[in-house]
């Protein structure tokens, strides 16, 4: 019967979808774990650089260091971190939505965008925004150099007075089931909250100012690296949840289809039996 054949084909295809989503979920889970480990490893470095900066900065005049100096904001750089691939629920769309809101608040003409990930790059390039730079296809083999390349480019723009402030919009990993969507100011860097005063005497080579002004870009690099990792693990976590839901849904659908299939099969058997009985009765008569 055509109906039966249709149903069995549908069951087959939904089952294979379920297998795919299940596999994607497993892959995402493994990737989250890896990214988490990388994040853990980067912490001592970022903490030590920040500690050093906070110990040296109070001793020197801040106005000499351009990356710390606050100036009047005319143009703002916004770094939007999204993924290259979809299948991650509302992961990308929520970042893009928040970015659009921010751009609207600041005025479209005074914003320069740095789009990370294919999703943001495509979205903003198509819509006539001021996109300064786009980076994509790097997530798969992302390493520390990727992060330093990106931060070097916006540090340069900041130092050339193209932009007076830089914000990053990204998903921060909270738990496997949830991410925090946040905006963070990365430039000019503000360390005042963490200043620590020590009474030790050190030798500095070269001077304090040189050390700090080379250290701050490095600190921004490692921050960028951590933000990329945060976003990456959130992406994979979101994908994991999305795929888990998809697998559950497929299970539901298969259950319904099977029920329908069995009903149809039973109906076919009943009609056949009726036909046979009818035929036999006709012979008896």
């Amino acid at each position, binding site marked *: 019967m055509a109906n039966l054949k249709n149903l069995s084909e549908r069951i087959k295809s939904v089952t294979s979808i379920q297998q795919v989503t299940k596999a994607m979920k497993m892959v995402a889970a493994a990737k989250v774990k890896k990214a988490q480990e990388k994040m853990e490893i980067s912490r001592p*470095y970022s903490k030590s650089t920040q500690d*050093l900066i906070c110990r*040296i900065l109070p001793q020197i005049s801040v106005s000499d260091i351009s990356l710390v100096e606050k100036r009047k904001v005319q143009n703002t750089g916004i770094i939007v971190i999204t993924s290259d691939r979809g299948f991650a629920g509302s992961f990308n769309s929520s970042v893009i939505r928040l970015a659009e809101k921010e751009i609207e608040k600041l005025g479209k003409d005074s914003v320069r965008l740095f789009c990370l990930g294919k999703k943001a790059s495509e979205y903003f390039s198509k819509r006539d925004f001021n996109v300064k730079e786009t980076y994509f296809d790097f997530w798969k083999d992302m390493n520390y150099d990727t992060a330093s390349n990106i931060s070097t480019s916006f540090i340069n723009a900041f130092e050339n007075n193209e932009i007076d402030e830089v914000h990053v919009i990204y998903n921060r990993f909270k738990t496997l089931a949830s991410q925090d969507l946040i905006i963070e100011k990365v430039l000019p860097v503000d360390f005042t909250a963490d200043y620590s005063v020590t009474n030790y005497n*050190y030798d500095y*080579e*070269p001077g304090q100012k040189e050390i700090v002004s080379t250290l701050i870009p*490095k600190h921004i690099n*490692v921050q960028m*690296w951590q933000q990329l990792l945060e976003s990456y693990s959130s992406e994979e976590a979101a994908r994991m949840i999305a795929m888990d839901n998809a697998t559950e849904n497929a299970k539901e659908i298969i259950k319904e289809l099977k029920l329908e299939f069995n009903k149809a099969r039973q109906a076919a058997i009943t009609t056949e039996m009726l036909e046979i009985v009818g035929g036999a009765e006709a012979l008896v008569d």
Partner: protein
Amino acid sequence: MSKLFKLDIVTPVKTFSFENVSYVKCPGVDGYFGIMKNHTNSIINLTDGTISVKTDKNEVKFSCSYGIADINSDSSDDIEDKVLLLVENAEELDK
């Protein structure tokens, strides 16, 4: 008295820790310099080059791109010496 000290080479992607180090040679901006126990507290810029670490057992070498050497700067007690090398990119070189 022991002439050994602790050393951490910290990079964003890996940390190498050593317990019993007798001597470290680092590429400073003005040329290579050595660190032994009781070095004066200092913070020194590092440049590209090789870091050689001599422990009580063997010698290990690392490639080093830009970095910072932080020598005893945050040890509140003078008893223990601790050297921290913050390096953006360090790889252990073949022996």
